């Protein structure tokens, strides 16, 4: 077990290292950050001076060394726009995004599990067919458009729910969260639904496919030959076998939700790190973009790690040695 953890740790570091190289290289070859920070009226001499001050005149690998060093120290640069450390900006907005993602996860699980399981158990029932049709439509929907429709209907037409912002927050462990206040909770409903929709539809299809696959396995037939009741066959034998692979995909889906939060946050003006990213892209605020990528990469690597651990805990076939 310890060896496995160590191995995974090495892998995680390798991945993060790779990401840092790619991010650094891509960023070095595109655009000129100097032009972003000097005033438009700056002379060539001023520009050269700024370039030296930023260390951009040094060879690429030296620049990378400095970048990496700063990275390890947690210094990801200062935002050109906000004039504040990029890391701080992101960390400030992280709770909002995580809160949104958390509710989307909750929502998609709450809907996808029962629907997917039912559709897998009774694939030919009318309800299952409806669920399958709906989920196919669900994965075909552009989430930003759904967001717009929801805003238009619930906020503009009916005035039932707010269309933008996070509303009032209340602190939990010193971190402000919106869902703790009624106003904040009302604000979170529409974005969470929008964000959850695609994942939810995909999970339904995956769970159903897995269950149908497992139900035709030999060991299910053997269990039937033992006289196991359908209920126990399904819940005790099929379900766990079907859900083991879903765990992996689910982990990846959380990553995907964090990514798609950028879109949802933009539509609903949700003050999370995704909206910050899109704003930074539009203003070419490079340190923030880099910081976002590195932090999100770290989050993904961590999620994958947790998924792997969970996987090994539920599947005895995985050998940790």
């Amino acid at each position, binding site marked *: 077990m310890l*060896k496995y953890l*160590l*191995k995974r740790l*090495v*892998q995680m570091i*390798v991945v993060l290292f790779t990401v840092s190289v790619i991010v650094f290289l891509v960023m070095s070859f595109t655009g000129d950050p100097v032009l972003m920070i000097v005033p438009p009226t700056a002379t060539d001499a001023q520009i050269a001076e700024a370039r030296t001050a930023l260390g951009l005149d040094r060879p690429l690998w030296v620049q990378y060394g400095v970048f990496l060093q700063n990275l390890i120290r947690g210094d990801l640069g200062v935002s050109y726009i906000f004039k504040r450390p990029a890391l701080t900006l992101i960390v400030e907005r992280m709770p909002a995004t995580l809160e949104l993602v958390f509710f989307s996860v909750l929502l998609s699980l709450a809907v996808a599990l029962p629907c997917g399981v039912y559709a897998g158990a009774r694939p030919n029932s009318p309800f299952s067919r409806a669920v399958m049709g709906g989920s196919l439509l669900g994965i075909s929907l552009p989430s930003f458009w759904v967001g717009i429709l929801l805003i238009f209907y619930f906020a503009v037409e009916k005035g039932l729910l707010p269309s933008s912002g996070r509303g009032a927050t209340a602190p939990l462990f010193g971190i402000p969260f919106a869902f703790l206040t009624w106003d904040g909770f009302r604000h979170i409903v529409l974005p969470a639904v929008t964000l959850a929709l695609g994942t939810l539809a995909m999970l339904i299809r995956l769970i159903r496919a897995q269950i149908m696959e497992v139900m035709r396995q030999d060991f299910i037939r053997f269990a039937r030959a033992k006289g196991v009741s359908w209920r126990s066959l399904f819940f005790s034998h099929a379900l766990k076998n079907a859900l083991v692979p879903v765990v992996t995909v689910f982990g990846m889906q959380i990553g995907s939700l964090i990514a798609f939060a950028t879109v949802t946050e933009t539509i609903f003006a949700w003050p999370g790190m995704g909206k910050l990213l899109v704003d930074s892209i539009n203003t070419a605020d490079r340190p923030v973009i880099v910081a976002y990528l590195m932090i999100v990469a770290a989050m993904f690597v961590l999620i994958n790690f947790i998924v792997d651990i969970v996987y090994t805990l539920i599947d005895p076939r995985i050998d940790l040695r």
Partner: protein
Amino acid sequence: MAGSGRNALLEVTDLVQSFSQPRGILDRLAGRPVKTVHAVNGVSFDILRGEVFSLVGESGCGKSTTARTVVRLLEPKAGRIVFDGEDITAYSPSRMMPVRKKMQMIFQDPYASLNPRQRIKDIIMEPMLFHRTVSGKEEAESRMLSLLDIVGFRPEQADRYPHQFSGGQRQRIGIARALATNPSFIVADEPVSALDVSIQAQVLNLMMDLRDEFGLSYLFIAHDLSVVRHVTERLGIMYLGFIVEKGDRDSIFGRPLHPYTEALLAAAPTLDREKAAAPLQGDVPSPITLPPGCPFAGRCPRKMEVCDARRPSLLPVEGRMVACHLYGEE
């Protein structure tokens, strides 16, 4: 020993084959040794012209790996393969080319051994056209039709795809493909084990007829002893990558000497016997860590002290070769 000398079509000497399993980064950092599956551990045999030689054993004994190495589908790790007087052990793919015409293979799985997307005629004509053993498309076509006739098909069946045929029929198509370039040597890797009993006899008879007609030699790989007894002149019994007993059919089936051969024969179900003898206990050990002594020592009912310590070598006993301390230099 029969077979040494000019008459041998194929001579295999001390053939070794192994596969290493990939290591992770950490394994490499920790300097852990590569895990190696020792599939074939110094196997020697020869096959005369027009002869059928069989390798027999249970799954994982290395018989198929030996066969695939002999035809150079796998690169041998050590040893020597002499075919028709040429040492082909280290031949490059291009130097193998003319040899390939002369050695072909019949496979185990009639469903996987034919490309599902090729028509029967293309399956059979591909080797001829590739090796230019025919002058052109026309000759290839007529030869293909005559081959199909030999294995029992009508000309109009040539345009069909493999999935339109049954297992036995497919196996016959595979045989026609193997014959396409007029080979002198055919490796048959469990050619009938996937077939129904009544079809087995058809395919075995066809193979034996073809041998008489074209003077073929076979290396016959099988786990079914009764099939082997029917087709073969000489055979080798394999266990854990070693040949434990080797000799002509009548002496081995008449009086098996190696305890494993004995057990194998006793375990094979037959129509002629009421009850099987007491079965051999245990499973075949892992080919990753070979036992230092006799490979069969762990399951042998007649194990002695020396068996764990020293690996017996293949020595002539009663007109055949046996690797067992029971028959050591007394």
